[in-house]
């Protein structure tokens, strides 16, 4: 590792260390916003608005051009390539969560796609019964009992718990160890491709949301719950919202002492 890599590593470690501390502090101080998930709301909104502007004026148009100029199979291969590079992190977190069988299958998946799938360009593992899993350090912490923490918007929606994934995912990505000269254009391609894959979702949001910030936050937090439970969250969580509305959501058969949620 070169000096610049060590420097990057130190930066990431300090960064996540600060954030974990902040998470601890943020949940004990008086909330600026009334929303219990989002004590950092004013700062988050500032970052959100700035990034949205940048996205609208620059990033999104570039992603749209990329989509119109690049045939689907090519974009799929590019997505596969980057997904494969980040798969070591999935394997790492599989084992940390005690998902040994899944870890073994994921190792096979990585090996197959990297070799027979030609450096990950082709996903040959899914058709033979080894589909992609989605695990990250935030989910690992969740299975260890760490709760979501505060919602945090930096380069996209995250939380004080989930942002810690930046450390292992960076260190376990082989490209981190290449020189910056090689890394730069590849990172740009990764960014544009990722944005292109999110165009459908962002269009749905732009169409339906009155307050894009709240919409994004809510969708992100719920999707994290979904992922932590590997796509099968307990059904009992679904109707909490009806209990919150005190008696409104309950017919006579379902009346319980509802919790009054301060919004």
């Amino acid at each position, binding site marked *: 590792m070169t000096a610049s890599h060590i420097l990057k590593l130190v930066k990431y470690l300090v960064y996540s260390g600060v954030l974990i501390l902040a998470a601890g502090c943020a949940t004990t101080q008086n909330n600026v916003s009334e929303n219990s998930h989002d004590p950092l709301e004013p700062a988050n909104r500032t970052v959100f608005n700035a990034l949205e502007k940048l996205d609208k004026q620059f990033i999104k148009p570039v992603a749209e051009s990329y989509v119109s100029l690049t045939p689907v199979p090519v974009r799929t291969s590019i997505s596969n390539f980057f997904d494969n590079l980040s798969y070591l992190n999935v394997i790492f977190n599989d084992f940390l969560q005690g998902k040994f069988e899944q870890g073994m299958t994921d190792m096979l998946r990585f090996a197959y796609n990297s070799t027979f799938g030609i450096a990950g360009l082709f996903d040959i593992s899914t058709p033979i019964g080894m589909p992609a899993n989605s695990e990250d350090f935030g989910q690992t912490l969740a299975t260890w009992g760490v709760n979501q923490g505060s919602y945090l918007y930096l380069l996209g929606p995250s939380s004080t718990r989930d942002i810690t994934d930046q450390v292992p995912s960076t260190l376990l990505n082989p490209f981190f160890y290449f020189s910056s000269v090689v890394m730069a254009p590849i990172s740009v391609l990764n960014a544009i491709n990722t944005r292109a894959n999110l165009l459908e979702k962002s269009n749905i949001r732009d169409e339906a949301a009155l307050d894009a910030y709240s919409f994004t936050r809510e969708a992100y937090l719920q999707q994290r719950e979904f992922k932590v439970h590997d796509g099968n969250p307990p059904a009992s969580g*679904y109707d909490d919202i009806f209990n919150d509305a005190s008696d409104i959501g309950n017919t006579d058969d379902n009346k319980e002492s509802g919790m009054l949620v301060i919004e």
Partner: protein
Amino acid sequence: MKLQHQYLLITTFFISFFCFSKMIWAGVDREPSINVPVNELHASLLNIMKDVSTKSFQERYNVMEEVMVTHFDIPLIAKVILGRYWKTLEKKEQTDFIDSFNRLTISTYVNQFNSYNGELFRTLSIEQMKKNRFVIKTEFVRIDDTPVSFNYIVQNNKGAWKIISVIANGINDLSLKRADYSSVIKKRGFDSLITSLKQKISNIQPK
């Protein structure tokens, strides 16, 4: 084995199979009308997807409006979305909200389900949550793409089962809208919410 023994075995097998499947279906079929809202919704969505080129936006809107009004408990959904703000509103404001919210939801469905490429809906399971409330788990199967999980909470309202919540890939539509709309009301007031809803509706509808 002697021939008549084989026949006996086969007949026994078929009779058992028949009885067994009747047992299974009797269990699932506990209340057939529970499935109606979700099945009707799925059938209508597939219809509007297939009819994109032959039917106008308004015609497809009418199809979905029929489904929403009949099979969703709109008044309840509206109340839950506005939460504690609901009681602070006048009757006319409540009606305005329900009307605008309804139109936006229907328009969004029509706009999003706008192409057909062999997709289908598959019901996976029905679980009881409370005496009067069930969750129906389904998935939207697409060719060459991952399936989308659509779960529905249905509740019996005066004899009819109606959908009160839709959860797509773990994201609860009701929670999403509640966070979104309450943020607008808090920052800019209720009238601004109605204006924004109407703005969104006109953005979606073709000129």
